[in-house]
């Protein structure tokens, strides 16, 4: 039969530390109580061990129920044992107001009503008949009565220590190249990856903070496209990022922190078209980013503006969808393909010679944002040259210049 040991301490941390030494099942009752569950057989040994390490202002109580132990610890000086099966008798003389120490909400009106009835102690409350009590005060009073008898009304809530997903390492000597740093990063990430696996979480972002020789700090934060748990994938992304942006001085210390999130569940369908593997895609994007730069990579988003070439790039995050139902799939053959404009960025200053022009359309006036500094006005022309090239030109009336915007293809 389990026994419960309640430890009282004004500071919760030493009580938690003491409890975790003696039992894996620990329940925290902030701000000043800790409960640990032990077996009846172990009770004398653990009791004597805790008493040896007990220092003021710690107090100790042992009982067969959590409720009795938590209430009894208030009476301990410095320790008290409630015999097995005697919890109700032990709690009987205690006032009803003591139930508030357990976090049980007691309305003032209820206390007044019980007081009017002459019920002042837990023992008196425990002896009242159930049915008549419920008839007068409602079904909620039953839990209160059970608690007054020393019975547990809630489940044991084990204390889960907070797991840190950070690693810090001070170096004995300065590192000037990335290779030895990669070796250290790999081992630190492996430890963090193990913790992520144990807790069933994945990394959403990785922060690397390097302490440099010249006193400055090098900080990089990698946001991952998908939550990743594999430490090798995270390591390769971090390595690629460091290669593209190496620190400017020798490294004397490092701090690595990972932000944990629940992993994303990705379920493939049987008839779904091929989609990129999320972890592989993240590595691919990192390699592309190292090659062409972050600013030249992503999915384009057309802006809601009439400004020519109005778009922005957003990070590419692909989530495959199942193929639409056959009946609803739009026919691809109804409309003609669209002639596409291949743009020059920036537009090329041009000089148009009429002798080379075969045909033209225009001008088409385009303007906008006249109320802002970024306003524009231009006259657009589509011109077919004798060599067959079809281009879009525009005349800028402010600069009084022609520009070649793009070529149709």
């Amino acid at each position: 039969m389990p026994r419960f040991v309640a430890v009282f301490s004004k500071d919760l941390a030493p009580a938690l530390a003491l409890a975790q030494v003696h039992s894996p099942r620990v329940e925290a009752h902030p701000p000043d109580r800790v409960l640990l569950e032990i077996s009846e057989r172990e009770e004398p040994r653990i009791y004597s061990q805790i008493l040896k390490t007990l220092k003021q202002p710690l107090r100790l109580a042992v009982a067969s129920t959590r409720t009795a132990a938590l209430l009894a610890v208030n009476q301990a000086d410095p320790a008290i044992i409630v015999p097995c099966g005697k919890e109700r008798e032990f709690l009987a003389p205690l006032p009803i107001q003591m139930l508030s120490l357990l976090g049980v909400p007691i309305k003032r009106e209820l206390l007044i009503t019980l007081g009017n009835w002459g019920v002042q102690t837990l023992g008196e409350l425990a002896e009242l008949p159930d049915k008549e009590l419920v008839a007068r005060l409602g079904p909620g009073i039953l839990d209160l009565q059970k608690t007054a008898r020393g019975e547990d009304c809630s489940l044991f809530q084990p204390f889960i220590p907070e797991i840190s997903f950070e690693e810090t390492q001070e170096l004995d000597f300065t590192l000037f190249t990335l290779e030895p740093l990669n070796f250290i990063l790999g081992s630190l990430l492996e430890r963090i990856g193990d913790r992520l696996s144990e807790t069933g979480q994945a990394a959403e972002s990785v922060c690397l903070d390097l302490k440099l020789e010249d006193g400055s700090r090098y900080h990089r934060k990698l946001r991952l496209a998908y939550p990743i748990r594999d430490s090798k994938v995270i390591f390769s992304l971090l390595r690629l990022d460091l290669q593209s942006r190496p620190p400017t001085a020798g490294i004397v210390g490092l701090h690595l922190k990972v932000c944990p999130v629940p992993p994303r569940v990705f379920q493939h369908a049987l008839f779904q078209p091929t989609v990129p593997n999320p972890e592989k895609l993240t590595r691919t994007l990192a390699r592309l980013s190292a090659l062409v730069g972050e600013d030249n990579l992503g999915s384009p988003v057309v802006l809601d503006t009439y400004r020519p070439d109005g778009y922005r790039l957003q990070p590419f995050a692909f989530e495959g969808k199942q193929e639409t139902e056959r009946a609803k799939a739009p026919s691809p053959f109804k409309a003609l393909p669209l002639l596409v404009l291949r743009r020059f960025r920036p537009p090329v200053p041009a000089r148009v010679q009429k002798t080379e022009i075969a045909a033209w359309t225009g001008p088409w006036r385009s303007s906008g944002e006249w109320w802002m500094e970024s306003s524009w006005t231009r006259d657009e022309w589509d011109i077919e040259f004798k060599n067959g090239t079809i281009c879009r030109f525009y005349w800028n009336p402010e600069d009084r210049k022609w520009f070649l915007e793009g070529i149709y293809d």
Partner: protein
Amino acid sequence: MGEERVNMSRAVLKTSALAARVFKGAALQKKDRGLLSTGIEILDSLLNGGFPRGQLTELTGPISSGKTALLFSAIARATQRGEAIAYVDAFNSFDPVSAAKAGIDLKRLLWVRCQSSLERALQAGDIVSRAGGFGVIALDLETAGPTGPAARSVGTISYHCWLRLQQAIEGTSTALLLLTPEAAAGSSSTLVVTLSRQQVCWQTSSGMVKHPVPGCRLFHSLGTELRIVRGKINGHAAFCCRFQ
């Protein structure tokens, strides 16, 4: 009795709304499973379904011949199927507005801008080819200029680069489409098509005309002819690309 039930079930399926959702198992082995539809019916008929997957296809031709329009049409079809697309843009000439109008779902498209560097474009093409999972990889090596450096540089790319790209996608369901002014990949490409412009048509109030008339101020469409230069099949087809 059993046969009557089967016939009755077939009749019910034909007439009910389930008809569009129920299909035979043989339909799973559709001919176009290994092919990427071009989005243009006449070209799909010519190519027996579309561009081959797991192979390198070259789209060549002079500027303003409609090859980018053909590329966008194939990409739009692929995004409608829910596939991811990688667009490696060597000379930063991709126009998102045109792409959206062509029916491309831009959320499924990864645009890699290589800042006018052919080497970077080839390296990026190699990276995405080996990543896997992309339905279409478009390698746009066409310069926007009528006589730009690309026309000379593409021909100087060594053969092993194309072979490496081809080997990276072989056996996968990825279609690698290469856009160049002229054929450059040699025997690494399974299919080489060349496009040539035919005729610009004009829009009038009474319809489309082939020659400009007084009062008509709009281009309507560009006639294009596609010819298969190298491939398992031969032939040519003509189609039109409309102006935006």
